[in-house]
């Protein structure tokens, strides 16, 4: 066996590997004509190397935006540097269809590509190699994680029992509104209210009946709201509402509407009919508040006053200075 035979054998193996490797390999010349087209490319495009060779890349694959691709490829010729594209930029370079009917969950193959310079004997770069990686699984699972995160953050924003905003989310909105109020002359008003003697409803009808009361009140509340009002279940049987662009008088109208709505409600739990009432406290934004917490406390004070003075009532917070 001579040396040249061995070399010939080596090249034969290399060709076999190129043909069978599970990444796409395309060699392009300076005019972007295809010079090499490996087995991966043939399999996914259905185009044989004989058909592809010598053809212009952009004429054969109209899905490849010429300007975009040349922006990535020209530095490779000019600077002998490698460039890369990732699926986040463009999902694919070549539009290859999903080829896995059972485990493939995307309609197309997501691709990352590397573009590398191929030096000729005189060290100039007259050819480039485009390497195509199938990253569909990575892309799909990344998109799954993102949509799961979105669902989680939505779950975080709602109270599970009543489907009103959660306390955490609402408090953030309150902080934002507080900052806006500090800069603005348009007033906003806070309403806090709580169901009277909720403990005895729980004690008398059971906790599940109590939950039904909370759900019914929340449903009624949703129908009473304007689009800009932000309501949450603050905790237990306490609710709070942030009424943007609303002065005290308008807030009183809102609060009374809520109070009467609850008073009139006939809440059904199984065979039983449950009635509830609520006490409400109102506090308009005051320049003297230094934090959103002060504002909350003022509304809480008004609520306490409504409770003390007989329940099923609305009370407005009076700043001490007056």
């Amino acid at each position, binding site marked *: 066996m001579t040396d040249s035979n061995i070399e010939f054998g080596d090249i034969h193996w290399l060709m076999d590997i190129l043909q069978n490797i599970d990444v796409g390999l395309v060699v392009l010349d300076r005019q972007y004509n295809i010079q090499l087209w490996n087995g991966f490319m043939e399999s996914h495009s259905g185009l044989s190397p004989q058909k592809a060779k010598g053809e212009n890349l952009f004429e054969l694959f109209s899905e490849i935006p010429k300007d975009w691709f040349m922006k990535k490829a020209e530095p490779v010729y000019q600077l*002998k*540097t490698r460039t890369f594209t990732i699926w986040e930029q463009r999902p694919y370079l070549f539009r290859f269809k999903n080829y896995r009917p059972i485990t493939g969950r995307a309609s197309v193959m997501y691709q990352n590509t590397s573009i590398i310079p191929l030096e000729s004997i005189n060290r100039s770069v007259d050819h480039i190699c485009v390497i195509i990686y199938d990253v569909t699984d990575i892309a799909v699972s990344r998109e799954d994680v993102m949509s799961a995160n979105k669902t989680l953050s939505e779950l975080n924003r709602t109270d599970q029992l009543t489907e009103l905003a959660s306390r955490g989310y609402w408090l953030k909105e309150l902080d934002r509104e507080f900052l806006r109020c500090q800069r603005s002359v348009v007033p906003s008003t806070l309403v806090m209210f709580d169901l009277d003697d909720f403990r005895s409803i729980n004690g008398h009808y059971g906790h599940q009946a109590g939950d039904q009361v909370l759900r019914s009140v929340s449903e009624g509340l949703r129908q009473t709201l304007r689009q800009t009002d932000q309501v949450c279940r603050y905790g237990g049987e306490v609710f709070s509402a942030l009424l943007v662009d609303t002065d005290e008088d308008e807030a009183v109208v809102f609060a009374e509407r809520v109070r009467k709505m609850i008073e009139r409600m006939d809440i059904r739990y199984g065979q039983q009919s449950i009635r509830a009432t609520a006490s409400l406290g109102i506090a308009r934004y005051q320049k003297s508040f230094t934090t959103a917490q002060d504002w909350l406390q003022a509304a809480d004070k008004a609520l306490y006053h409504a409770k003390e003075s007989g329940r099923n009532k609305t009370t407005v917070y009076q700043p001490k200075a007056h």
Partner: protein
Amino acid sequence: MTLTPTEVSLSEDQRDCYQELTNVAMGQAADRLARLLDVYVVLPIPKVNLIESSDLHMAIQDAETDSAMSAVCQGFIGSGIAGEALLLFNDTSFSDLAALMNYGGELDRYGELELLMDVSSLLIGACIQGIGEQLEIHFNQGHPVVLGQHCKVDDILKSGNHQWTKTLAIEIHYTIEHVNIDCDLLLLFTEDSVAKLNNKINYLLD
């Protein structure tokens, strides 16, 4: 994975040598940028340091203000020497960057991603290649990973749980004349690469 018992070290001579090496690589990178984009890149003196993993955060924060940033990371490996290049952009740079790269499209999130990828290919590639050529190492580069767009450093380095304690870091602050482009390139080698790199450097020092 086995832990290397050898302490990572860096002598003054070695530090100078790394600095020189990076200078030359950056000179080449700047030359390439000049040819491609017709701009003059201001070459600063690169900072070469051994940093502890707990300092990584600070090293980056040091280079940047606390404004929003975008970051791209790319791994490289050759002759058993491996590392990652981290490119950090101050978000205020994008419109100037677009003008520089002749990017005509809209500067939305995708437009910015395109720019990030193009610029990082150029800067990281040129620098890695320059260092590799001098040390006669052929570095293979992995695919760039976008660590974040418009985030704080905390979000970019959220993992925090690094598998190393102390390693070699080369930090380059790029600025381009007459335009508001402000980016930092941080090359971080793996802990066990440092001894091998030092060996290569010692050849140059002899």
